[in-house]
């Protein structure tokens, strides 16, 4: 019963330097009030779950649904930027999710703090949000 996020993908030049070892330059967003604020998450925490679908101009890309996905958190002005984790990057890159126009739907069910502590996200209820 996790956090279901639907967000456009955004292309940056590079992830912020403090998370650059783990993150790649593509990110999605989610309002902080649904993620970092209630769960008291911080920059660099890892957010994980699975891809529900990735669409381009309304058409679903094949081969991505159900794949595990991880992101690296970086918060800007009450918006959580979820940069694609380096472990997830090859899958998305190889499907061409490297330019604007894609929309990603992901089911996020856990966060791993930089301390190593794992947190379940909304284990008792599914929350649907738009990024």
């Amino acid at each position: 019963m996790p956090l279901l996020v639907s967000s456009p993908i955004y292309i940056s030049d590079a992830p912020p330097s403090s998370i650059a070892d783990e993150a790649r330059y593509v990110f999605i967003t989610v309002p902080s009030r649904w993620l970092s604020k209630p769960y008291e998450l911080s920059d660099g925490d890892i957010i994980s779950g699975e891809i529900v679908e990735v669409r381009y101009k309304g058409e679903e890309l094949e081969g991505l649904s159900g794949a595990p996905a991880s992101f690296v958190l970086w918060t800007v002005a009450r918006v959580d930027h979820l940069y694609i984790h380096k472990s997830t990057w090859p899958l998305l890159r190889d499907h061409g999710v490297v330019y604007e126009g894609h929309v990603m739907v992901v089911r996020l069910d856990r966060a791993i703090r930089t301390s190593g502590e794992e947190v379940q996200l909304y284990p008792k209820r599914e929350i649907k949000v738009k990024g």
Partner: protein
Amino acid sequence: MSDEAREKLRIAEEHMDNFYRALARGELDKAGEFLWATVNALVHALALTRGERLPAKHGPVRDFVRKLAGELEDEALWDAFRDAEKLHANFYSPGIFEEEELRAMIDNVVNRLVRGLYELAESELRKG
């Protein structure tokens, strides 16, 4: 002045929403201009939290950020403001910068300036 500051923060958030929409479409020129508007609203908000109402002109906003960067000993903040000015200029004269330069400037403004100004303004408002 804290109500006015909160209103400026709300305006900044609206500009950021527009920024994200433009960025998602790959419209970097527009995205840069929305960032410039965001930065202006945030500077006005932060000034208000400090009891200062800035005139709606470029110069006082620029002076405020230069002074702030000095006070915080944060040269990167000032550099990011310069990038915001370049994004503003680019909107009226598109093509000055290559796409990768625009993306790098947008990153710098979002991750250093917008983030920094927003945190400072919120922190000042919490102090009340």
